[in-house]
């Protein structure tokens, strides 16, 4: 079996047995990154940095260290800042930016011995559902290069989908892990808000931004997530809880598990080619001994309006730091004239450095936070957010997990939604409610579309209550023991 077809457990075993070195493993993936550059997954690759990290991992092993992740390669979404690779958030604004420090998630994975393959593409500042908003060009979906890989973590999902990285970090604000994972046929994991540190994640919407992972399987995710999560005093919303081993429930059967099926997630708008595999996945759970429970999340469908007030409000505040003074793009003397004064320089730097989607969200945010509109929009949205979160708590009195589709459709084509922001925003209909509540959620592959979409994957979404990641990943793993959707890889990238 090729190295890129092996599970993390298999790679770890071979590394531990010294049949394989971290350097050889890194070289294998660097060669794949180079061969499949056409996917446009990577924004910064520095083989000398990667190989130095791999040599260090081998040296640590030679000194007697034996962590499960020691020597395993990882690609980082370009939202996490890194000292040794440029950190751009896929924006012209931050072209060439070299961070003075590593994000906590990056530092924790390095401490565990993971080897950084490079930085992966995404929608600019993680704003988008198709990766078409990257200033450095869209990523292609490895299953069908005429389709988007999803977004915002499209580089992460396509890299893992094409097996050019065994693991990638990602971030999820309204669905940015789960939707691209579904579109690329891999496992996407968004833990509970506050579990992973936000320190060093270039901020988009601070009350929603959550770090997570793209992996082939739930088992792989459980291994890496244990290293990702942990209290960080540098993040004011980091949850101070003991670290956990998220692999602990992988062996638990789902016998007796109550899975809530929200009727609102199967309403009109859900494409039949998505509904069929999702319903079939629910039947797999039933056949494994789980009980399906009808539940209702009546306010969940208002998640999109709520999100498009809360997230832009926080975005307009967070992106105010890009002023062309301390770092980032500054309007130059080129063009029609020199900046007149400081305000003119700031306005022009932002206009030139930021793309259309961040600008749109900054404008929405500035409006809903402005005098006279704050209560009508921002406070109102926060109140409806509370209603949605309360409905999740009500639902979790009736069930242990919630299951449904990740998206209404399979991956769409380039340009299909790019001109119509509202239709693009609807891509996150089923993922935003969980983001607003802050509950953990995974997307796991459960089939493919039909007809012309027969090579486009479909995802099943599972959500759990706060801090119940171990059970969530355990249930996902049990499905993956019974099925092989997660092991399907795009044939064009087999070699």
């Amino acid at each position, binding site marked *: 079996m090729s190295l890129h077809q092996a599970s993390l457990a298999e790679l770890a075993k071979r590394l531990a047995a010294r049949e394989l070195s971290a350097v050889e493993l890194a070289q294998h993936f660097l060669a794949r990154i180079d061969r499949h550059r056409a996917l446009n997954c990577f924004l910064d690759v520095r083989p000398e940095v990667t190989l130095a990290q791999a040599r260090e991992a081998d040296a640590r092993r030679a000194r007697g260290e034996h962590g499960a992740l020691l020597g395993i390669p990882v690609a980082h979404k370009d939202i996490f800042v890194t000292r040794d690779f440029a950190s751009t958030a896929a924006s012209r604004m931050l072209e060439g*930016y*070299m961070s*003075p420090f590593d994000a906590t998630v990056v530092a924790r994975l390095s401490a565990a011995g993971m080897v950084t393959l490079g930085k992966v593409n995404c929608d600019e500042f993680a704003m988008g559902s198709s990766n078409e908003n990257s200033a450095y060009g869209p990523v292609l979906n490895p299953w069908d290069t005429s389709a988007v890989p999803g977004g915002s973590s499209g580089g992460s999902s396509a890299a893992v989908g094409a097996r050019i990285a065994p693991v990638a970090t990602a971030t999820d604000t309204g669905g940015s892990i789960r939707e691209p994972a579904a579109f690329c046929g891999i496992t996407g994991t968004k833990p509970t*808000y*506050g579990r992973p540190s936000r320190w060093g994640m270039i901020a988009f919407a601070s*009350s929603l931004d959550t770090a997570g992972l793209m992996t082939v399987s739930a088992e792989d995710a459980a291994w890496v997530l244990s290293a990702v999560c942990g209290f960080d*005093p540098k993040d*004011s*919303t980091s*949850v*101070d809880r003991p670290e956990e081993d998220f692999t602990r429930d992988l062996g638990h059967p789902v016998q007796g598990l109550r899975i809530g099926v929200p009727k609102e997630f199967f309403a009109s708008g859900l494409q039949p080619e998505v509904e069929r595999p999702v319903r079939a996945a629910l039947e797999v759970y039933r056949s494994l001994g789980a009980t399906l429970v009808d539940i209702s999340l009546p*306010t969940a469908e*208002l998640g999109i*309006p*709520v999100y*498009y*007030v809360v997230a832009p409000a926080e975005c*307009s505040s967070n992106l*105010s730091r890009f002023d062309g*003074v*301390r*770092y*980032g793009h*500054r309007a130059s003397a080129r063009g029609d004239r*020199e*900046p007149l*004064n*400081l305000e*003119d*320089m700031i*306005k*022009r730097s*932002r*206009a030139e450095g*930021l793309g259309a989607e961040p*600008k*749109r969200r*900054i*404008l*929405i*945010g*500035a*409006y809903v936070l*402005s005098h006279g509109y704050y209560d009508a*929009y921002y*406070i*109102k949205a926060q*109140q*409806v*957010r*509370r*209603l949605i*979160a309360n409905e999740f708590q009500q639902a979790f009195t009736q069930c242990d997990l919630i299951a449904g589709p990740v998206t209404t459709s399979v991956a769409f084509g380039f340009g299909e939604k790019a001109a*119509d*922001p*509202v239709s693009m*925003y609807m891509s996150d209909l089923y993922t935003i409610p969980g983001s*607003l509540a*802050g509950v953990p959620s995974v997307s796991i592959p459960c089939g493919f579309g039909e007809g012309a979409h027969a090579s486009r994957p479909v995802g099943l979404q599972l959500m759990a209550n*706060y801090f119940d990641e171990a059970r969530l990943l355990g249930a996902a793993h049990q499905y993956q023991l019974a099925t092989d959707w997660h092991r399907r890889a795009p044939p064009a990238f087999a070699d």
Partner: protein
Amino acid sequence: MPLRQEDVQRIAHLARLAITDEEAARTLAQLNDIFGMIERMRAVDTDGIEPMSHPLGGAQRLREDAVTEMPDRERNLANAPAQQDGLFLVPRVLE
């Protein structure tokens, strides 16, 4: 009430974004679509509901007021578009 083009210019100024009239016109239609979608939320009865600013609630944690690390001035300034003598340079502020 739909936004007008002068609203877009006003918001853009609040957000310190230079915007041409042509961009403002194009953005106006998109923003009105988006606010049309947002409007549905405003019909919900939220009387007495406490706004949710954060999924896990609770107060912001405070830390000890102690020096924990020293800034790396050279590395921080390395990303500045313009700098001199360890300071950030900006265009004239006072006319």
